[in-house]
């Protein structure tokens, strides 16, 4: 995990749900196809224009709804560097971290407009909006989650755990 993630902001509204991030119609398709339709219903240009490292800024209750991991996987596939929102759908929040993408609770008074250049430090929670010359501190990730995200997500973390268990017998 990079100490600082820098990218352009993609800004979404309140209550964007995981059906919108990963539509059920593409459940049987490979992720390459599913990811093309990520956010299609609310931002048709997102999937084709987002660049690796870009930062997704959600509104309240970002990622509510279905537990489908494909929502976070689509963002991972598209190279999203971090996800910020004032509040999250509970499973989406966990899934995002499980796929190694830092997810931070954005202070409600921090203004981010589409295309703003953001710098995010996952370990400290420090967020800087270079375009607007503003900064804020989100709550840092709890230690156990930071370790998992730093390892690259739940799978790499499980590999480390299993290897340790094998070593320790």
């Amino acid at each position, binding site marked *: 995990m990079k100490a600082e993630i820098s990218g352009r902001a993609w800004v979404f509204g309140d*209550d964007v*749900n995981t*059906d*919108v991030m990963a*539509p*059920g*119609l593409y*459940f*049987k398709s490979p992720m390459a196809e599913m990811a093309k339709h990520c956010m*299609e*219903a*609310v931002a048709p240009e997102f999937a084709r224009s987002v660049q690796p490292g870009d930062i997704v800024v959600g509104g*309240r*209750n970002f990622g*509510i*709804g*279905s*537990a*489908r*991991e494909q929502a*976070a996987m689509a963002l991972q596939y598209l190279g999203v560097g971090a996800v910020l929102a004032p*509040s*999250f*759908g*509970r*499973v989406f*929040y*966990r*899934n995002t971290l*499980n*796929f190694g993408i830092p997810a931070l609770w954005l202070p409600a008074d921090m203004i981010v407009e589409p295309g703003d250049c953001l710098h995010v430090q996952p370990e400290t929670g420090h967020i800087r909006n270079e375009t607007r010359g503003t900064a804020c501190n989100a709550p840092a990730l*709890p230690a*156990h989650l930071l370790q998992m995200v730093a390892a690259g*997500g*739940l*799978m790499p973390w*499980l*590999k480390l*755990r*299993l290897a340790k268990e094998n070593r320790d017998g």
Partner: protein
Amino acid sequence: MPQTLTQKILAKASGQSRVAVGDIVTCQVDLCLLLDSGGPRRIWPRLKELGTGVWDSEKIVLVSDHFTPAVDVESAAILKLTRDFAATFGIERFYDMQGIGHVLLAEHGWLEPGMFAVGGDSHSSMGGAFGCLMMGFGAIEMTGVAVTGEIWIQVPDTLRINWRGDFGPGVAAKDIMLFLCREVGTDNAFRVLEFGGDTVTSMSLAERGVLCNMAAELGAETGVVPADDATLAALQAAGRTPAADALEWCTDADAEYLAVHDFHATRLAPQVAAPHSPANSGPVDQHAGTPVDQAYIGACVGAKLEDLRMVAEVLQGRRVASGTRLLVAPASQRAYQEAAADGTLATISAAGAYLLPTGCGACAALGAGILAEDEVCISSTNRNFQGRMGANSAQVYLGSPYTVAASAVTGRITDPRELLA
């Protein structure tokens, strides 16, 4: 310090005498529900990558419900892989084309008060009807559970939601939840909804399941109805013997809730949620008269035996309107069989409804009954997000089985009380 039911269950699951709200604890899982959607097809390749198997096949319940029956080679392959997984890991509690997992857990009595259970989709919260804590997670995290039998939980706050008084005719638990999506809101991560009051304690376990199921729509960690004699009776009817301490799983009298909400069921009108959110709800008269192309009875929340009986009560002696189609996908084979035995299905079929196989069906745009561009549907399912049931421009309204059936009869969104009077 007094504890909430949620704290007590998480304390037991994490091997501690007590836990405080906000604590991050590692819980041992008592029951793990895997589904064909986010189960073996997503978990098995990861187990292979990790070079390991499942931690305890006896604690896993595996259900094929999202892709049943196969409609193309891809869904057939998913179902085949799910069967292979059950055989390879010796999972005895495997239900293939028997109905929707959340409903099967209740029918078979696999949940009991005080349990800590997890499931591979968001509506796993439905298990809370049995006085246990059951939470939904994504397949990646269910992989972690399958390997370790553990999961981390941040001990949530509890919102206590009391309902008092009797429903009027044509009103059901579904109306309570559509009302709560609007009144309490959908931003409730790190909160558990604990339901109580005489309206709730007089509900069947199936109706309690509706409350807990749609706790997911409120964004809550889960929902729970503390166990009572009805819970024990339901377990006994399923052939289980409840533990001697089953009724001790309850919130202490002076435990601290984040908030307590009190509502009255007697004044509750049938509710309808307009596109594209369950929180976009109001009394049915706000949308009465809206023409519908399709009326859909289906899903874990809305096609159990009791739901089918609500539909039949409205359809008795009536016909589905010309120009509107009524699709009915019973939630389980047992519901199908019992509805066939007591005449419920005959009434529904005679009214002109189109009967579909059991399973998750059109609710998540995976099975039969998907909507075309611009079509309007009223549905007994639990969420109406844009594109959820098919085309992005389709308009899905949510209502109780009563309201969906009444709307099918008139071809327009209709207050079921007009037909039941």
